[in-house]
């Protein structure tokens, strides 16, 4: 699953524009991910600051 590190996110929308599923959405300064996400990790690659991470399971 995709984990958003909000303390790093610069809410720029670069991730939104490359997502093949249209699963990401920037609501003002708040990035959201919906269940269309396939954890492909393209967004995590493009992020200028490393705010996105694909994890095997939900972190505790």
């Amino acid at each position, binding site marked *: 699953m995709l984990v958003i590190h909000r303390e790093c996110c610069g809410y*720029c*929308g670069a991730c939104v524009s490359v997502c093949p599923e249209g699963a990401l959405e920037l609501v003002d300064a708040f990035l959201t991910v919906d269940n269309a996400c396939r954890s492909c990790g393209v967004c995590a690659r493009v992020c200028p*600051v490393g705010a996105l991470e694909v994890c095997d399971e939900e972190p505790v």
Partner: protein
Amino acid sequence: MKSRYDALVIGGGPGGAIAAGELAGAGHSVCLVEKRPAIGAPVRCAEGIGKDVLKEFIAPDDRWISAEINGARIVAPDGVSMTVEQQMAGSKVGYILDRKIFDRDLVWQAASRGAEVHVKTRATGPIVEDGAVKGAVLETCGTTRKVKADVVIAADGVESKFARWCGVDSAVPLRELMSCAQYILTDIDIDPGLTVFYLGNKVAPEGYAWVFPKGDRTANVGIGISGRRSRDGNRARDYLDRFVAAQFPGGKTIEYIVGGVSVCRPLPCTVADGLMVVGDAARLADPMTGGGIYNAMKTGRLAAGVASESISSGDCSSSALMAYDRAWRDSKLGKTLERNWRIKEYFITLSDEKLNTIIHSISKMNLKDFSVFNLVKELIRHNPRLLLELKGLHDSLKAG
């Protein structure tokens, strides 16, 4: 907010503002919505624009001009630089804007021409009837409204979600999305009239680093790298921090922004039934420079012209709106985009050694007009061997 307008514009950047202003000026009812609470902020831009193209849209105003630019410098990977001053070309070259004020002025201009403006108002989806876009669902502080319109203009920037919701695939390939980071640095030694571009695979793989003056000792200092070259430890911000440490170790950061810029070809089609897509949302940023302000304003204006006729004639089908798609593709802007995309595809293949050779060669030329077109034309003239590698590029230059 009313429940119906002639036109609904999604996004309050330069493309949306110009489109809304022109439509309102033509006597149509227009609603412009911006999802952010403030027009122009946060900035996601290096803020450069040419003087000659800017004045097609708005008279220059000191309130939003941070710096006047009279030349450009390109720095090769080995540090050798070439500078092009524009004194030969009259009053040309450009400005570095203050986008927070500039964008607000454009929307202000649209509002004074009669457009309705709503901030902190976000489109969450289109209204579709019989396969045609007929408006949008808008959300403001938890309240949802359906707003109908004859035409919706999607000017929602690099995210380009509205077109996607309407079935237009606007996703950018990873390799053609430039991952960018920028600081406003102050207390640094710069030439306040020169934009500087640093090339090289160590500095900015498949992109460049820039220093765009915002004052005597202040500049937008940023970097863009291809998405496919971005990874942990080597992300845009990591490259930027290394660049700043090397070039401006004493600089003080007074603003920090990140962003994405598409350098792909434009959308194959920028209209659908009831829908027009302009600016960054239509993937119209220049693939060579990453510049998108002018292209957004220009396509915003072209879209408004066609929308106005279509609204008046009562036909907002994709075949009627196609006049907009044809207009920008046939214009100088459309041809420049295609040519610069080809040039970009060539440049990203170059090794640092080859970039050095090319920039050394350009530095010996007498370039009077610093444009991508002239640069490449001169380059080929001085390096005929390049032609072998650049056959397609050369043909496209002749065509352009």
